[in-house]
């Protein structure tokens, strides 16, 4: 009985198959490990904001505390973007009697300031919000709480990096689930005394950071959990 054999020319397919397989693996690898990785997708996201607000000036040079503007951060889940009135405290527009005395940066009408503050003053006049663009965005099914972290001594810098050095804020960390879980499994390096939470350049003095972390963890009874319900409800 004559056995069926593939013709010899089909041998080329074996090589082709190999190439396709390799290519597929390469493609899938690049796609899933590279392109869609939070490192690629998330880090460096820097949308254009309506006002080029500089954290370098406010948080860096002027050393304003984070909580002056982000009032919810130690009280609630949301850190909150400041209300227009918070900015107006310093950047008030001109009144009929001229620019106010305490105004740090004056209204554009007297040519003392660039038009960059126009959206702010428009908001103040019209009552509509300044259309800030959200940068650090978690999916809606993630329930992150700022207060839970800030009140336990996890600094802003842990997730947002050195905001005080960012002229324009961008996302510096992955904020992915693995990244969160890593810290929940090993919180010690990220703990500091609560009073230094908003001091972004703080370094432990006179104590080994590892010891400090362990001490704070024990003191504050911190044992972060990693079950699903911690963040997903």
């Amino acid at each position, binding site marked *: 009985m004559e056995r069926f054999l593939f013709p010899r020319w089909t041998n080329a397919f074996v090589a082709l198959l190999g190439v396709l397989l390799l290519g597929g693996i390469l493609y899938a690898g690049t796609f899933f490990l590279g392109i869609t990785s939070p490192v690629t997708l998330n880090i460096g996201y820097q949308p254009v904001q309506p006002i080029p607000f500089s954290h370098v000036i406010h948080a860096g040079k002027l050393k304003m505390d984070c909580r002056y503007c982000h009032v919810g951060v130690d009280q609630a889940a949301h850190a909150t973007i400041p209300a227009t009135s918070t900015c107006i405290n310093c950047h008030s527009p001109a009144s009929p009697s001229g620019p106010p005395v305490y105004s740090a940066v004056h209204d554009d009408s007297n040519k003392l300031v660039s038009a960059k503050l126009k959206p702010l003053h428009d908001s103040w006049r019209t009552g509509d919000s300044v259309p800030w663009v959200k940068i650090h965005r978690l999916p*809606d099914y993630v329930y992150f709480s700022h207060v839970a972290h800030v009140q336990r001594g996890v600094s802003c810098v842990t997730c947002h990096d050195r905001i005080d050095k960012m002229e324009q804020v961008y996302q510096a960390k992955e904020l992915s689930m693995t990244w969160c879980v890593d810290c929940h499994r090993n919180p010690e390096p990220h703990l500091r005394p609560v009073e230094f939470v908003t001091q972004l350049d703080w370094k432990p003095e006179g104590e080994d950071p590892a010891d400090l972390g362990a001490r704070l963890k024990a003191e504050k009874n911190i044992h972060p959990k990693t079950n699903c*319900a911690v963040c997903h409800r």
Partner: protein
Amino acid sequence: MSSNGNQNRVRYFRSLAQLENTTEFEEHLHREFPVAASEFPEGVSRRRWMKLMGASLAFGGAAGCRYQVEQIAAFVVRPENHVAGVPNYFATNFEWAGRVMHLLATNMDGRPIKLDGNPQHPMYASSEQKDFHDGKDAKFASAGTDVFAQAAVLSLYDPDRLDRVIRKQEGRSVDSSWAAAESMLNELRTELLKDEGKGFAVLFDATRSPSLRRKLKELSATFPQATISELKSVAYPNQEKVLESVAGGGELVHQLDAAKIIVALDADLLGSDEHAVLYTRQFGMNRTPNSQMNRLYCVESQYSVTGGSADVRLALNSSKLPGFVSALEAAVDAQLGGASADIADSDYSDLSYEAKVARVVQVIARDLVANQGASLVAVGPHHSEEVQLAGLRLNAKLGNIGKSVKVFQKSDPLAGSSVGLAELAARISSGNVKRILVLGGNPVFCGPTEFRLSETLKSAEIIYLTDYEDETAAISSWVLPATHPLETWGDVLSATGVYGVCQPQIEPLLNGHSALEVLGVLIGRPVPAMQFVRETVTELSSGMFTDNQWKQLLHDGFVTMEASLAAVNIDASQKLEAEAGFGDLLKDRKAEVLLLPSPSVYDGRLANNAWLQELPQPVTKLTWDNALIVSPRTAKALDLKQGELARVNHDAVGVDLPVFIVPGVADGSAIAHIGYGRTAAGSVGNGVGHSVQALRRNPGSWLLTGAEIRGTTRPYKLSTTQDHFAIDELGLSEIAKRAPTLVREGTLESYQSDPKFAHVEMHHKIESLWKNPAVNIDYAWGMTIDLNKCTGCNACVIACQAENNIAVVGKEQVARGREMHWLRIDRYFHCDPDRSRRESGFADPVDVTIVHQPLMCVHCENAPCEQVCPVAATVHTEEGINAMAYNRCVGTRYCANNCPYKVRRFNYLNYNTKYGYHYGWQDYRESVNTKLQSLVLNPEVTVRGRGVMEKCTYCIQRVQNGKIKARAEGDGRVHDGDIKSACQEACPTQAIVFGDLNDRASRVSQLQADPRSYSMLEELNVKPRTKYLARIRNVPKELTMNYQRNTLSHGHGAHGDHDMEHATTSAAH
């Protein structure tokens, strides 16, 4: 284990279908998922479904593309003390579904998303639980609410609400504006002032608002000739007349916590009564068998919530109640005169019906006489004046008046200046009233037919203030949008005279104005509503009301004041003359029809509320329908069949209603709920159910005798959930032989002799195959549900729906068993097995009792669902909560299949599509107008999409936030009572208790240590965290039935089942 349980089995059944073991029930039992579960609705049903979706809720989570620009709209000026995402709580009070609600509104970022009872309100505080004297009472206070209050937020965000002024000219509707309406009202005033308001009338929806009544008084002073009339859709004129005659008018309020013996005679105190929430709280206070147990007798024709909670219930036709009351009065008189109760020694179970009635009369009389001053007799307000007077007389003779039965004085500024509906109708038809301002109430649909309001009103020009474009709007020349009570200033005066303020939680969403504002414009004194309310409260507090008092009022929600008690003068020498015949109504094929306000849609005004429509009604478990509820024997005698329409003829009026058979309803009585069959309710409520309004001839026509009922053979599909998610004992027959039944109950007597009756020793030591990971690191969350306190009122079901963003699925989907309620209340019937078998082969069960069992995920420590999930989407937390990670779920449904309690709910379809909840490229949510209905969503809970399993999470969002709060603001520990689940908070009797089992002193730990505590399906070794407390019936010895004595007392129900066809044989141990 006892062996005497074998002969007289406790038999619980969910429906007659189960009792007769029909194929339909078998299917429900065996199929893990109902028929064609993945079929998409097609054709008409599909369109209907889509429409429903348009009015329930939900919009989407913005899961999706990373670089989609999302804006943050910060405040321009941050409101004082407002922190984004932290709810504020405001006390408010309003009238809703004929009840005065005293509420605490949860206001999340400026929108009310949840309503609960105000625990500090004196009406509730007086009935505070005193079970736990550890100084923590106030913390545990949760006032409880009812279904209507829980569902009120959905109505606020209903996109079907009227959002514009409509003007009808020459038969055409034109959109108009408030400015035009205002100038119309101003012109009207000028015109009316000419001849003192002649030819003008105001018809207003019944109200307890002192401000509105004061405003109407002002109107009558401005236009003395105007006619003012009140429309009360659920009115009991007979009760009013009796109170008028004995106390010069007033409010009758019972004090159930002051009564050891409560006799409800056709009075649904815990169900449809106006004060049901208060009564339920008071009732629950004395339902602890260890300390105090009241005794509730219920004699009624329907099977009400009260009947289900009763210790002794007697089914009696409403038309025979006069005879019963007369006999009771005679017996009480005799016993007060020194005679001893005439109670024979024979066994209650074997008595004939007439003998049972006589026995019950004697026993009630004995109990009443033994508890003078601490008992109460309540007669249904729909009964005749004589019968109600007899009820009050009994209370007077027993010294209950002023103690457990109170009549509060009532002062009405409108007294004398308003006329009845009849007079108004007459004035319209005679042409004396040409223009009429209707303030809500939908008189065309709700008004009694006697006055033919739908006809007579047409001859007048109607200005109608309404929240929907309803039946009355269709014949009005001006239709003005009204505000929801959460959008407006107002006030209420409770029946006991406590003043409560209604403060707006949000600006009017749909351009509405309140009746106060409209009347203000009309009479030319357009005072802002807040100012007017403040004037009212100042007037009520005799002219002095400081700013501080006002602030305190806004904080507390009420002013501590109480009406004084009215003097009740009753001639004790009178007697109720009534024929004491208890014969069979069905002999001449005549029946009585009892009309009742609906437990879901009230008088029809809530018809467009999808949560309420889909709520399984307390006893029938019907959704999206009303029905003619009859007993099996009535059905047989009148040739009625379940699932077919019946024709009810009474006094030349006929209505069609689908038949629903409920065992335990009095033979010859048929019960129908009003408020269905709306034609202009909105997209949800249109065409739901059948209208019985035609039978509502006059305000007092609730009980119609001599009705002719016959079956038509036209089929009609009802969606009832009574057989859904039946827990399959059958499949576990081997275990069932040893295991007790799911619900356990006993008599007080048996409990006292054997407190641990509900506890069952396992025959074999139960061991797990593997060791569970260590849990309970900080807390061990657990729950207890006291079946003795649960009345099955359903408040928890809607509370859960509101808290957890649970989707509404529509009638067709419910029929397929796809309802999404995380919390269901299983209602089990129970009957005298011997007699039922002997007399009718269980076709017509005898002495039917009810047990309600709320059931949601019990959070097994050894959870079967977790063990089969291929993607670990359902896993345990360290604190013992069985959590769901929706985003992991791929929809295999293995978990639901493996859940012995059947508490998991699957999103067969994307129930949230119409609200913009889509996936991937379909995610066009911004283009869909989702704004209004989506506001009702709780932002703390994920909205689930198609293909995802969901279930009770023990309100994980409350647990997590509670822990975070304790760390941030407290001492780092969550203390008992800090975290309450939504169902617990809504429960008026505090039957549901949630807490930390690691804390030995916590309430839930103490309750789980109670001898009545048991786990459901304990033998499966799943170790549920939710435990139940067995129900105890405080049945007097003389009325204890055989089966109660023999079997209930031992609770070991599920020995071999000799009665059922699917019996197992072995029972000997």
